């Protein structure tokens, strides 16, 4: 007997564990303050370096332990989820739309337009993304929006390349030719006839990007080029915890586990969605 036999038919076979993790992250991001056990920025030096409860000296109030200033790590992880969700949302929205538009234009018009845009993509991919981030961070103020800009600049080419390929295949279809002969304007062809056909691909690409965006933000914040104090981000928590790595293993482990679980869930869910919606993207 299947374990999910009690579920309604549409809900069977869904990757429930990843969905639950992602939902939990989403709830923390939206309603963080109301469900956190502590104020994530509240200092309590009496609680400094309190280990998690299963270790000697631990307190049940601090489920995942406390950091060097006595701040509750669980509360800080919950607060940090907000940055991950905001960065992932805007970065994916912008890189997806810009990349899709450029890919559509390159694929549809072909010729010199395509050649120029493809060169641009190649140039973009010749600068390692972390190096691009470094030079941008040196030029701009580091912060949430710099992170978003860096990710958009890094990922638009990825979308553009794949969407261009799809559009080139679609362009030859009869219904597009008919629409053009019937005098349908180019923007309408893009919106009504091309966009619906690449929509599944876009959704799959966006889901597969979630994990990568979260890793990228964490790495930038860890290097000090991303989110700045007093804002809270998982990467920044790890960067702090590095200073007292010999005193508190939990401060190094827990935020990393949050990153890993979230990315793992996003990747598993993305793979599932890809197999469902767009099996041709298997190569990714």
């Amino acid at each position, binding site marked *: 007997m299947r374990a999910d036999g009690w579920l309604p038919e549409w809900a069977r076979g869904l990757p429930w564990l990843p969905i639950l993790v992602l939902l939990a992250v989403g709830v923390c991001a939206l309603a963080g303050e109301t469900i956190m056990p502590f104020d994530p920025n509240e200092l309590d030096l009496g609680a400094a370096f309190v280990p998690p409860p299963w270790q000697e000296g631990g307190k049940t109030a601090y489920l995942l332990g406390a950091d060097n200033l006595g701040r509750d790590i669980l509360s800080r992880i919950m607060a940090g989820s907000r940055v991950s969700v905001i960065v992932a949302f805007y970065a994916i929205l912008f890189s997806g739309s810009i990349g899709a538009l450029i890919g559509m234009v390159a694929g549809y018009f072909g010729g010199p337009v395509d050649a120029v845009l493809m*060169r*641009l993509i*190649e*140039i973009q*991919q*010749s*600068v*390692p*993304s*972390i*190096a*691009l981030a*470094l*030079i*941008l*961070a*040196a*030029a*701009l103020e580091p912060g949430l929006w710099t992170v978003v800009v860096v990710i958009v600049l890094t990922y638009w080419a990825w979308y553009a390349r794949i969407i261009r390929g799809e559009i080139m295949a679609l362009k030859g279809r009869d219904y597009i030719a008919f629409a053009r002969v019937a005098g349908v304007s180019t923007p309408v062809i893009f919106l009504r006839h091309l966009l619906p056909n690449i929509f599944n691909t876009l959704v799959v690409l966006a889901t597969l990007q979630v*994990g990568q965006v979260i*890793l990228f933000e*964490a*790495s930038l914040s*860890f*290097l*000090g*080029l991303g989110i700045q104090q007093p804002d809270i981000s998982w*990467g920044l928590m*790890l960067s702090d*915890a*590095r200073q007292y*790595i*010999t005193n508190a*293993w939990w401060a*190094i*482990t827990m935020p*990393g586990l949050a*990153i*890993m*679980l979230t*990315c*793992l869930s996003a*990747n*598993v869910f993305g793979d599932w969605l890809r197999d469902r919606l767009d099996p041709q993207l298997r190569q990714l």
Partner: protein
Amino acid sequence: MWRFLTRRAWQGAISILGASIIIFLISRLSGDPILILLPNDASQSLIEETRRTYGLDRPLWVQYGIWAQKALAGDFGRSYRWEMPALRLILERLPATIELAVFGLLFSVAIAVPVGVLSAVHRGGWIDRVGRVFAMLGQAMPTFWVGLLLILVFAIHLNWLPAFGHGTPAHVVLPAIALGWYPVAAQTRIVRSAMLDVLDSDHVRLSRALGTPERLIVWKYALRNAAVPLLTMLGVYFAAMLGGAFVVETIFAWPGVGRTVVEAVFSRDFPVVQAGVLFTSILFVLSNLLVDLSYGLVDPRIRDAR
């Protein structure tokens, strides 16, 4: 073959040119470079004069031309912090970065090849399944966290290996593992699927029919063919290592280009940042070029394609 080679070389050159334009433009985003050169209370006439001496009153593309011309001659300006030419600093630090990337690559291949081969031979067996779980985990762990966990376990708790520094063979172990960790998953997948293809081919079946020992078939005849896709991809992974080196070098205090550039960002040492990023991009383009060339060598269809 020569036509293929020159065409790819031209494309590489255009990419590097484009990268240098991006680097130049982004550096100018930070504001007027004059304000870094002069004290805050400099008079208006001094500002105007300095601007003229450095060519900063000219149009942007002329300024880029001046910058690019100097860069081609190896002059990126002096590092404010290290008080030496930026290029010399980067070149001094480059061997350490390449050393780290090579060892990282060795580590990932040393894991990926046996795991990939065994996963293919015992398809669906425990190695295959464990390998897949590890691949999923590996893709979800940030490189810097892997590095921190390695320090926590092997340097602090077990005290087996040094946590930072450079010099002895022991120093390279943890950074190389941290750097090589991420690509293991993808490499294992490449080896596994190539092995599955080869093991299913006629020449393997013939060897089996002739009674060749299975171990010899798998580890010698099949692997030799299955290694080609991985070998051609090594350039891509080497390039990826250069990106990862920025983070890993920072964690392990490795004296390479990555850490130097990260530090330069914080001290607003622009010549060093520009030289470092441009150099990484050039290495990046060169490794990708090597990949294309090795494809062309292995597969004549690619080199003859338009």
